[in-house]
């Protein structure tokens, strides 16, 4: 399993290095590589994201459905019967309750693989550099583009960041805060904001006060930005570049699909549509 995962990370590393090579190794090239690579990943997982959105929308619609709400009340004390009825409705309506989870499951290894490939490519230690040297594909037709001698060392600078380290803009006058050792966490705030925006903008409205999906979405819209912001505070800023790019592209994708709910980000917005009857 470890060897397969290593191959997966190596694949990501080689793609990143190929893009970096095509960009000419210059200043900001690795940051731009991460952005382009994220766009590539987003492009590949576009159908999955669309499926996730459709699945989430179907589940949300179901929460507002009269028949669904009725069986919740009717079988509130009989969980087994409730589960049977829910399965029947899923089947009748052609809804896969896991359709919205599967793409998330698939994206997690991609996020972790990308993070590991960024760290591997930046090779902050001799052991890391050795691992990088071995990860680079030794294929003759790729050798003009993936030559370890010319690729190393990678330029890890991107805008004001060192992509191999957590981001922070030093406080003026040498001021320090122990809980913000890298300075003012600009990127962590941007990641948290764009994650919040993405979650809010793509959250369908709900009429049902007992709607579990809506309650979970609401909870996730708070916890996910905080969690990702915390990650960015503590881990290599290359990951933050991925998060910001991915969030922005996510919003763009949802907007292109006509699913963005701009009212959700306005105070008091996101008023629910009336419950529909089957």
């Amino acid at each position, binding site marked *: 399993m470890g060897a397969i995962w290593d191959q997966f990370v190596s694949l990501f590393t080689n793609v990143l290095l190929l893009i970096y090579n095509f960009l000419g190794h210059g200043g900001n090239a690795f940051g731009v590589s991460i952005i382009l690579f994220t766009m590539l990943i987003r492009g590949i997982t576009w159908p999955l994201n669309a499926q996730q959105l459709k699945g989430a929308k179907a589940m949300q619609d179901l929460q507002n459905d009269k028949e669904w709400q009725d069986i919740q009340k009717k079988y509130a004390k009989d969980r087994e019967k409730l589960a049977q009825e829910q399965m029947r409705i899923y089947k009748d309506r052609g809804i896969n*309750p896991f359709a919205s*989870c599967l793409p*998330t*499951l698939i994206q*997690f290894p991609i*996020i*972790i693989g990308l*993070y*590991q490939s960024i*760290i*591997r490519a930046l090779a*902050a*230690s*001799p*052991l*890391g*550099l*050795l691992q990088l*040297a*071995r990860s680079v594909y030794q294929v003759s037709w790729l050798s003009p583009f993936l030559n*370890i*001698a*010319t690729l*190393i*060392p990678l330029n890890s600078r991107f805008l004001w960041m060192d992509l*191999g*380290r957590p981001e922070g803009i030093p406080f003026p006058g040498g001021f320090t805060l122990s809980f913000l*050792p890298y300075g003012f966490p600009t990127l962590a705030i941007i990641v948290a904001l764009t994650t919040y925006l993405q979650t809010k903008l793509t959250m369908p409205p709900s009429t049902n006060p007992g709607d*579990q*999906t809506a309650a*979970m979405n609401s*909870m*996730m819209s708070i*916890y*996910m930005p905080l*969690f990702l912001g915390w*990650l960015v505070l*503590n*881990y*290599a800023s290359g*990951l933050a570049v991925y998060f910001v790019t991915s969030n922005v592209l996510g919003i763009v994708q949802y907007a292109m699909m006509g699913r963005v709910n701009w009212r959700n980000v306005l105070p008091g917005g996101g008023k629910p549509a009336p419950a529909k009857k089957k």
Partner: protein
Amino acid sequence: MKRFALISLVLLGGILLSACSAAAQSISWPGLSADANHAYLAKGQFVYAVRLSDGSKVWQYPASGGSQVFDASPVLTPDGQLLAGSAGSDNGLYSIDPATGKDKWSAPFTGPDHWIASPLVLQNTIYAPNNNGTLYALNLATGGKRWSLPLGHSLWGTPATDGKLIFVPSLDHFLYAVDPQAQKIAWKADLGGAAAGSPVVSADGKTVYVSSSAKKLFALDTTTGSIQWTANTTDWVWNAPALSGDTLFASDISGNVYSIGAVNGKNAWPVVQPDGPVTGSPLAIQNGVAVATESGFVYAFDPHGASLWNIGVGGNIYTSPVASGNLILVAPLNADFMLAGVSNDGKQILWKFTGK
């Protein structure tokens, strides 16, 4: 159920990313040096002094773990100090009393970045290459900064000297010759690839040998930096070759071992390939050369490349083996011990040091 699954996923992601973050720290293979009676092992949060007679611990520095991460080989100085650079967030270069394990300077010298390379001591000055690409010249007695010189990208290789110039390899593909009197670069030579390991200077001081990721070994004139010869290797010779008389023993990360003429750059051996990649420098021994492989073995070859002996030590060996007395010291990674004392005839492991 779905809520539980999502929260679990987020937590799992956090845990996995936390595991990955180890790579973000400068965690690498251990550093090792020795005198006649003790081995000095830099590993993780501590530097250990180990008695060579029985493999027991004499002291560890610091007494309890802090923010230090010691990877670079500790350096014994002529005036009785042990210098150890940290690749941890403290960025400290420490002077330790090798007899007691206590600090010798009033405070460590704090660099702007990690210390991955070991420093070089010449007369009463320490020349310490930092990961930020700057060479620092420090007062040997106090650790105070005398001057500094920005060179290039990260400096990971321990400098070498001919007594006049300081030769500093860099990941930016250059070998820099620094004139310590003028405090400037005397010359620099393009190696066509990153130089992560150390150079070595010939006994007469006229030639400096260094390798790079371009899969080449170079012999350069120490005065001018002009290339005397270039030897192609199958893969990257990571660390300094071992100079023994007129022969350079070198090894690469594909596991090939070479015997290269120091004068003409010709490899005298057929394919000699023990069972794994070699990152450490070969060790010249009385009747040939020994190399330690990633597969956890030490192999010895005679001057013609014929096998003398081999011994399985365990773990993955990336650190250069060190000889002292009748021992070959080996510091593996990923083993249930930190250091092994192998008899120099390769017949047995005399002791293992576990850190306790």
